[in-house]
């Protein structure tokens, strides 16, 4: 232990002698480590976003959409056919054992008016279960009930953005707003959820019973004919996502009386699976960025090797003297190895600081989500030490194996 300490003292003295040179050599490592930390933080930030997105949608959520419409061989996109009904939504909840909740969903862009204020927002016509599935909570007031849905009651829950825009500072509970001239009583407000991963404001919404939405607000048009709905939102039991999807598919095929040869006229997708695919893509991108950044770490290592070789040549006479007064092969080897590792570790620590700063800068200026994780810092520290050992070994060995007589004679 004493020997290591002593080697470190000698090494730091040698590094201090050539401050500029040591600093420039470290710069290579600083940039390398900094780049790796920053790129990894961008990658894990993106992954983290996706996790947040899953959390904000709610867990174990499955979306059932109508399939594509086939009119005389012309296939329109998914969601265009009108094959799903409120009955389907109810049947999914009642007949699929691995489904906890299901809610029909019909949405529409509408203008909402309170007093002299008005605001354009999205109307969500749903069943009461929708709140549970999406994990939406009420800030104030009460949710609507199955009774409200049955009776087509004109009640509404408001997102925070809507409240802010039409009520100003006023308490919205119990007030009457108008959507398409139809008066609605505000019975509750939602806890804000913020933006989703795509930058969409999740608080810019009004939630009301599906029946009311269809009959009073979205009336008219083929798509909104009685019973038909835009999609069904389902929450599966924990860990039973795939089973729930299979059950839903089987149930809907039966309900829609599809023959074995016919394609599904609907589509069942798990949000988590979609997110997982997206996450994988993000991880690959992060890995790619990190590996490009680590190339600069290797370049930094080569810089250390270069400088150590110069240093060994410059100090040949000193090495000869140390050998003459009794330095063994390992003494000289460890002296130069410690010097190289000190360079790379010091550079590594500064690089970590720079990488953290860079990741803050990226999230501040570019608005990307970045996440500096402890493992990435530890890995950077470890790798910079490794770079020092790897690229410092050859010069140190060269120094240790010098012939003392020739080294002493070197001018």
């Amino acid at each position, binding site marked *: 232990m004493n020997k290591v300490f002593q080697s470190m003292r000698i090494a730091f003295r040698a590094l201090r002698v050539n401050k500029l040179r040591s600093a420039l050599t470290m710069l290579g490592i600083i940039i390398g480590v900094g780049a790796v930390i920053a790129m990894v933080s961008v990658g894990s930030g993106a992954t983290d976003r996706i996790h947040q997105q899953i959390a904000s949608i709610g867990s174990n959520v499955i979306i059932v959409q109508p399939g594509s419409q086939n009119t005389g061989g012309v296939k329109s996109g998914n969601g265009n056919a009108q094959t799903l009904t409120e009955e389907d939504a109810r049947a999914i909840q009642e007949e699929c054992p691995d489904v906890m909740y299901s809610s029909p969903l019909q949405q529409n862009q509408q203008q909402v008016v309170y007093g002299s204020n008005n605001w354009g927002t999205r109307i969500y016509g749903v069943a009461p279960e929708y709140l549970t599935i999406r994990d939406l909570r009420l800030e104030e007031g009460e949710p609507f009930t199955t009774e409200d849905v049955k009776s087509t009651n004109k009640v509404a829950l408001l997102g925070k953005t809507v409240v802010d825009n039409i009520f100003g500072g006023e308490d919205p509970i119990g007030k009457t707003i108008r959507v398409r001239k139809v008066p609605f009583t505000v019975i509750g407000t939602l806890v804000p959820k913020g933006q989703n991963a795509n930058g969409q404001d999740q608080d810019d919404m009004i939630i009301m019973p599906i029946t009311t939405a269809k009959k009073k607000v979205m009336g008219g048009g083929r798509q909104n004919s009685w019973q038909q709905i835009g999609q069904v939102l389902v929450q599966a039991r924990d860990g039973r996502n795939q089973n729930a999807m299979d059950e839903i598919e089987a149930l809907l095929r039966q309900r829609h009386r599809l023959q074995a040869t016919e394609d599904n006229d609907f589509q069942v997708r798990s949000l988590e699976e979609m997110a997982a695919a997206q996450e994988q893509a993000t991880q690959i991108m992060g890995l790619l960025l990190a590996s490009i950044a680590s190339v600069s770490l290797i370049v930094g290592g080569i810089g250390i090797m270069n400088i150590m070789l110069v240093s060994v040549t410059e100090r040949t006479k000193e090495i000869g003297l*140390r050998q003459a007064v*009794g330095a063994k*092969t390992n003494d000289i080897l460890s002296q130069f190895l410690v010097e190289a590792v000190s360079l790379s570790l010091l550079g590594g620590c500064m690089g970590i600081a720079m990488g953290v700063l860079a990741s803050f800068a990226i999230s501040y200026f570019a608005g990307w989500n970045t996440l500096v994780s402890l493992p990435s810092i530890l890995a950077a520290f470890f790798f910079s030490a490794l770079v020092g050992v790897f690229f410092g070994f050859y010069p140190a060995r060269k120094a240790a194996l010098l012939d003392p007589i020739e080294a002493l004679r070197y001018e």
Partner: protein
Amino acid sequence: MDSALIRIENLHKTYHMGDNHVHALRGISLEIPRGSFVSIMGASGSGKSTLMNIVGCLDKPSSGKYYLDGVDVGALERDELADIRNRKVGFVFQQFNLLARTSALENVELPLLYSDNDKSKFKERAMAALTSVGLAERYDHHPSQLSGGQQQRVAIARSLINNPQLILADEPTGALDSRTSVEIMGIFQKLNREKGISIVVVTHEPDIAHYSDRIIQFKDGHIMLDERVPNPRNAERELSELPEVEEEEEPVA
């Protein structure tokens, strides 16, 4: 225990440079008893440097035997040689070979870093060595702040630090003026007389050689002459007879 500190038997050293074989030493036999003060003289290429390298355990003989303090040096490995140099041999060079930007004290400590000594005693021992060469009050000076003679005294203190049996000095006065040379030779004589350390000085100046008890002349890889010095010069007395000079020496650039 061998009575001779250095015993050399039919020593040959041949260097191979491509197809050329250079015979630097051609069968030397030599014995140096403990407590000797020997000068080695000879023209360059006479083999004296080669002999010094072997005696200093920096090099090994091609054939023949070299015993230092009874140990057959020719049979030792690289690191064992380093250990012998550390414990038994002190080196003094013409160009002092001090580490720049390092204090006199730390320069003197250097050999201790490579031996298994008690670290808490380093400072104390280095100070003692500096005191014995009369430089205690300049322990924190860097070599660039010391005169040539002072630097050589630091180097001597460094060679003393591990209480060696032998000090090898290669042209120790080659870079010094004549008065300083006398001072340095005086230190060697004192160490030889008072501590019984054997001293081998390589020099080409007959004046310097006459401070020792014995002169060995080399020529073409052979010992040409090996004689006792009837009346060695006494540096201490000569110094007291020299006119006084300013105590503060001019630092060399």
